[in-house]
């Protein structure tokens, strides 16, 4: 019953249907652009590369969570507030209350994941759009964060986390660096520069790969495999594609969605913990607007805002584009407010392209 009226699919068209295509093209363009205008600014020297890789990794950590949640058909606008909240919880517990840092981190994760679950249950039970439910939590969590911080310390920044974390076993998992030996060796052969004065004289300027990058890569690989190569991944697509149809064939849609809200919260907490351990302080205004940046990464990565379609690899490339552009503008000496202009423009472009691709896949006209 092959229909002679359906044209054979060209390889080009098939490639277009991959969700990541736009992000791959975008990444190439962005690299080419900055190689041209900022090639000699040190952006592509080891330190420069490390600089934008770290920024990209930050975006990637929250984008992976947002990506899986969006494919499951929901949004979480409370990610940014959750980042601020988790940071303050860790700081209050470890610095103000004198808890061991590992306990503070574990409790922060537990609280965040619980809030994620509450988000999910509210969305499932009330049937309200996740946009509204998580918007409420955007305000609730931000308000609580500032209140808690002022209540305990009379200020909105809590420092001293690094000192409190000395010798802790869990803190380096978020704030530490790996492959130190590699960078010592790279410094010896002259690829990486060394400090020429001060207490760290002779040590390489990059002391290792920050754990944040390891977390980002780990989450990307985990998210990608989960989505495309497991039963649960198929359920994520199904829940976002058509929840009713998925329920009819026995997919536990409510469970899938609640778990994805919890995973998004977990990712936000990873982001917050890495940041707090790196800076040695927590601030109540951390993570502002991160929820939108995560969503933009995911959309650049080819996911549909309506759910049921998207790619973790695409979202990761979206995060890379973000990091490169944000830091690239800095390296090329451009006005940094232009970054927002870029964000807005690329968001519109990505959504238009995705809508077009969706029509191609479903054959709508």
């Amino acid at each position, binding site marked *: 019953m092959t229909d002679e009226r359906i044209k054979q699919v060209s390889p080009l068209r098939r490639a277009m249907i991959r969700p990541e295509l736009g992000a791959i093209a975008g990444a190439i363009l962005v690299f080419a652009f900055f190689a041209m205008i900022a090639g000699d600014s040190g952006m592509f020297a080891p330190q420069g590369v490390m600089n934008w890789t770290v920024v990209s990794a930050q975006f990637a950590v929250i984008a992976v969570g947002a990506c899986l949640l969006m494919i499951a058909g929901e949004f979480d606008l409370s990610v940014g507030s959750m980042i601020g909240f988790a940071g303050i919880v860790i700081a209050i517990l470890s610095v103000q209350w004198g808890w061991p840092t590992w306990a503070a981190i574990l409790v922060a994760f537990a609280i965040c994941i619980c809030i994620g679950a509450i988000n999910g249950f509210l969305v499932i039970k009330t049937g309200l759009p996740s946009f509204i439910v998580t918007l409420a939590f955007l305000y609730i969590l931000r308000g609580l964060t500032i209140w808690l911080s002022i209540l305990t310390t009379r200020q909105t920044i809590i420092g001293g986390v690094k000192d409190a974390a000395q010798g802790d076993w869990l803190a380096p998992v978020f704030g530490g660096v790996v492959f130190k030996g590699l960078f010592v060796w790279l410094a010896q052969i002259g690829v990486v520069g060394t400090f020429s004065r001060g207490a760290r004289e002779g040590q390489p300027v990059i002391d290792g790969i920050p754990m944040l990058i390891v977390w980002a890569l780990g989450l990307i690989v985990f998210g990608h495999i989960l989505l495309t190569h497991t039963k649960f*991944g198929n359920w994520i697509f199904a829940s976002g594609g058509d929840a009713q149809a998925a329920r*009819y064939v026995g997919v536990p849609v409510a469970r899938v969605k609640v778990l994805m809200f919890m995973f998004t919260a977990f990712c936000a907490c990873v982001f917050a913990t890495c940041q707090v351990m790196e800076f040695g302080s927590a601030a109540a205004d951390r993570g502002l607007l991160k929820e939108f940046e995560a969503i933009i990464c995911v959309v650049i990565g080819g996911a549909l805002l309506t759910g049921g379609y998207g790619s973790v690899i695409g979202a990761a490339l979206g995060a890379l584009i973000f990091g490169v552009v944000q830091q690239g503008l800095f390296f090329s000496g451009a006005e940094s407010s232009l970054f927002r202009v870029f964000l807005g423009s690329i968001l519109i472009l990505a959504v238009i392209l995705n809508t077009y691709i969706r029509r191609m896949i479903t054959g*709508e006209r």
Partner: protein
Amino acid sequence: MAVYDHDPIIEMRGIKKHFGPVIALNGVSFDVRPGECHCLLGDNGAGKSTFIKTMSGVHKPTAGEILFEGKRMNFDSPRDAMEAGIATVYQDLAMIPLMSVTRNFFMGREPEKKVGPFRFFDLKAASRITMDEMRRMGINLREPSQAVGTLSGGERQTVAIARAVHFGAKVLILDEPTSALGVRQTANVLSTIDKVRKKGIGIVFITHNVRHAMAVGDRFTVLNRGRTLGTAQRGQISPEELQDMMAGGQELVELEGSLGGTV
């Protein structure tokens, strides 16, 4: 006919279903035997959808009993009914257009392979099975990774039917499978029904199109305002009689007269 030698696979006796003050079903009896196509006819609002949802475990009956292979059954969820062997292909298809044929085919029942401590969705095996099953139903897919959205309405129905058959359905409930299809596609779906029936699966074919019912049905039950008006065997009833029963007789005759016999 040979099929009547068998006992029914599923038998519904005096099913009543109330939604608050609304009486959707008021004593409906119905049964399906292996290898027969039992058509359930009725106009909009007659209670067809409520009835099949009761049969497939979505609703629990307010009164009445369901016998499956002679045993009393109480389905708590569609999953229970599915596991017993009752598969439903809903009007709105239960297919997700953005997902590939393979992913749709195995949705909710993904085959897994173990690699170390991890279990992965065995897409390779799933794709192979999907291609085979679809070929058996007479559809040659371009590739198993093509999105369901690129298939025609008839092909989508066939994917849904092939899926039910593959997963060992003993009873296949088809909710208006031909209502949105063109002539050619309807013919394809009807021939698929015929193929499935020959495997010994009992089919419940819900429709309000008498001609489609007559084309494949072995028995016909008409539902009107939540009650069964009666069951007839093939050859015992004419299309006109069925049509009249469905519409509640008298009014339609008058209407038909004024329309010059075109209904």
